[in-house]
Structure formats: C-alpha cells, structure tokens
C-alpha cells in the first residue's frame, strides 16, 4: 500500500512539473525586417537616451522623461527617474556599448508601449555591470514630443521572480 502511495506521489509530481513546461517560446526567425515607422522612431529615441547616458548629458536625458517617470524592476521598489538619472550620471557608471534589438511598438495614439532587448557593455566602479535586459517602456506624447513615463526592466536569463510570502514568526527573538 505504501509502495502504491509512493508511486502515485511520483506520478503526481511528474504530472505537475510537466504542466509547468509551458509557455514555450517561439524560436527567433532568421530574417531581416523592414521596421515600422514607429519602430524606426522609437529606436531613435531610445538610442538618443542611451547616448545621453554615455555622454553624461543630464539635461538631455531629463528632457526625455515625464515628471512622474518611474522605473520598475523585479524584486525592488519602483525607482523615481530622478534617482535613476543620478545613478547613471554618476562617474562610477560607464556605458561603453549597447545594442537594441527585437523592438516592438504598440501605438496607442497619445501613448506607446515599446518593448525591446538591450545588450549593454557597462561598468560600475570598474567592475563589469552589463548584460542583456528585456525592457518595456511606456512613452507618452507631450505636445509634439514623446517622453518616457514608465520603464519595466528585467535581466534576461535571471531567475524568475517569485512573490515572497508573508514572513512567518519563528518564535526566535
């Protein structure tokens, strides 16, 4: 009976983990695209921002952000863009090179959701701080200009974020 129970438990576990295989990511097609007008435009804006970071041009970077701009990352509080500007303008941070790819733009009229993959070669206090990041930006139209309102960024290949449960009292101290 115990043996049967054990077998059932193993079978159940296998079933559960098998169902966790989804979703399967479609493969990347080797192809060369004609980018849409929006992809062309936002690609330019994103590169403009990154060049401002490279050149430590605080004014240029700030002019591309909304007043309430925030940056969100897994497992952290949202960061005000003013703090983000300070961090990337810090001389300890050096953005040497970057590549943007797989850009997609959902044009919502006065707002646009832009997603892309960014590979960057950067250093913080002389130590490598680069990698590949998946970024989702929410741009809002401000008159004739577009400004970044929200950024959601996660490192590609990092462990999936798991929500932390409530802290249970251990009874110790």
């Amino acid at each position, binding site marked *: 009976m115990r043996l049967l129970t054990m077998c059932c438990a193993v079978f159940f576990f296998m079933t559960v983990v098998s169902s966790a295989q989804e979703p*399967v990511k479609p493969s990347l097609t080797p192809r*060369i695209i004609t980018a849409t007008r929006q992809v*062309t435009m936002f690609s330019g804006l994103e590169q403009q921002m990154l060049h401002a970071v490279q050149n430590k041009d605080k004014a240029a970077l700030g002019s591309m952000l909304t007043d309430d701009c925030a940056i969100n990352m897994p497992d952290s509080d949202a960061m005000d863009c003013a703090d983000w500007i300070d961090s990337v303008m810090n001389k300890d941070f050096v953005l040497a090179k970057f590549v943007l790819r797989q850009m997609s733009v959902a044009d919502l009229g006065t707002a646009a959701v832009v997603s892309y993959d960014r590979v960057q070669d950067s250093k913080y206090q002389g130590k490598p701080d680069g990698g590949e990041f998946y970024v989702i930006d929410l741009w809002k139209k401000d008159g004739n200009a577009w400004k970044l309102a929200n950024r959601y960024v996660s490192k590609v290949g990092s462990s999936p974020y798991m929500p932390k449960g409530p802290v249970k009292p251990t009874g110790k101290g």
Partner: protein
Amino acid sequence: MKLTLGKFRYFLAFLFVILAANFLVAQKIRDNHAAPGEHMTPNGDGTAAARPTGPTVVTGNGINYNGGPVLHGNPVPIYIIWYGTWTSTSGSNTAATVSLIDSFLGANSLGGSGYEKINTLYGDSSGNVTGNLQLSSQIFDTGSQGTRLRNANITKAISSALTTGKLPTDPNGVYLFLTSSNVKESGFCTQFCGFHTDQTINGADIKWAFIGNTDQCPSGCEIQSTGPNSPAAGVGGADGMINVITHESEEAITDPDLNAWFDSSGNEDADKCNFKFGPTQTAANGARFNQTLGGLNFMMQMEWENSRGGGCDQTLGGTFFTN
C-alpha cells in the same frame, strides 16, 4: 533478485532526482538555433553584429560586404504568392491592387530603372547585380494556412506552391508572399512591415519575403494614407505595399542569404533609407510621389548608394538626401 522496499525507495528517490534535474534544465526557454542552411545574422533593425567573412568588393561607403552571394539574374525573376482575399470590390484587397503591383514588377517599370540601377553597385566575387528584375509568375492562395500566420505557415504555403509545381523552384529568384489585410502575421505592424529571409524549400535555397497589406496599419507602414494610385481617399494599401516590396526586393537581391551586404549595425541597403523619400511632387489626388515608372507615379523610399561615400538617393548617381 528480490527487490526490497528499501531498495525500491532508493530507486524512486534516484528517479525523482533525475526527473527533477531534467525538469530544471527544461525550464530554460529554448535557445534560438538556426537550422542548417539558415544564417543568424542581423535582423534589420540595427541589432546584430555583422559577421565578417570573405573579401570586400567595395569599401568605405557605409555598408560592408560580408562574403555572401548576391543575385545576378538579368532579370532576377520575381514570383508572387497572393495570399488571402484579393477579390474584394472595395478597399485595397482588390484586383486593382494585384494589377498595379503586377505592372510595377512587370516590364518597363521598376526593373532596369535608374532607381533599381542603384543596386548595380553591389556585387560579389562573380560580379555585380544587374539592376533588372521582372515578375515571372504568380499564384493565388486564398488561405490554405488560415488567417493567423506564423513563419512556419508561410513556409508551408510556399513549399506547397513549389512541390505541386504551381511555381517553379528557383534559387535565383525572389518569392514575394503578399497577404491581404484580413490576414494577421505575428509582428506585422508592431515590429515590421515586411521581412525577407532564405530557407531550404523543396531542396533549394529559396529567397522569400513577406509583405502584408499596409492598410492594416497605415500609421505604421504607410507614409501617407492616400497614395498616388489610391482608388479612394484613405485607401493607400497598394502604394504602401509597393514601397515595402521595393525595400524587400532590393535587399533580397543584395543580401539573399543574409550574409552579403549590410553595415556594422546589421542594416542592409534599404534599411539605411527606411521611410526616407527625398524630394516629392504632388499628384492630382493630392498624394505625394517621387518616382514615375511605366507611366505611373509611385512613392518609394530611397536606397543606399554604395559609392561617393554612401548615401540615400532616388536614382543611380543622383543627389543624396537625408530624409
């Protein structure tokens, strides 16, 4: 040999560990592997490092030769698969659109024009591109793969056309897969207006391009919603498609296997002038145009000229323009 419960427990624990490890490995989302015969090079939006191989034919003009072949046909044969519904009586999924594009790719139009001759500045060790192309044959597929496509569906449709002999299997030609506006292709309108690639189909290296009806997203894929050949205001699909067809056919000829001509950011000749048109004139219906071919006006993006330091122009040897 008698298997005790204790040993069986160990066996189950071992099996559990193996399966768990297997599962954890499987959690890594699939890597992208190019199939044999395919090339993981740039994707056209300035996103991949160039793959330096082979001798350079011409240098110093903002675009590099990376060792692969170009298409030398005189003319390069063009094959069209009209996919979806192209028999509507209004809008742009019409016989008029089919006729216009057929004419554009037919004799005495794009092929051999001063515009197309810009391509003659690109070559390989066997010679340069001729600057001539011409529609060879076409078929209609009313929807064998449904109306929501992925690349694999397009491959199947093309493969079917070749294996059944409806179209010839020609590794020296370019196959255009043109979809009506009711057909969805993942990425169309949000990432791209078209793309080109090559694949082994029916035993041959087939160069094909996808171009969707741009009326599905005029703001993304049309420079103007009413083109010089629009049947009515706001119906710019045929003109919009012609612009993308021009882009893709140029690139499919100068970089057919995705390993010939592109710059250090992965941009091919037409990518470098994407949605840049240069000076324009105004047609009777108010639409802008910048080319007249075969007696018809067209609004076509410029192409990168591989000479004089490089630049976008409307005709071979013409003035360079930045927008």
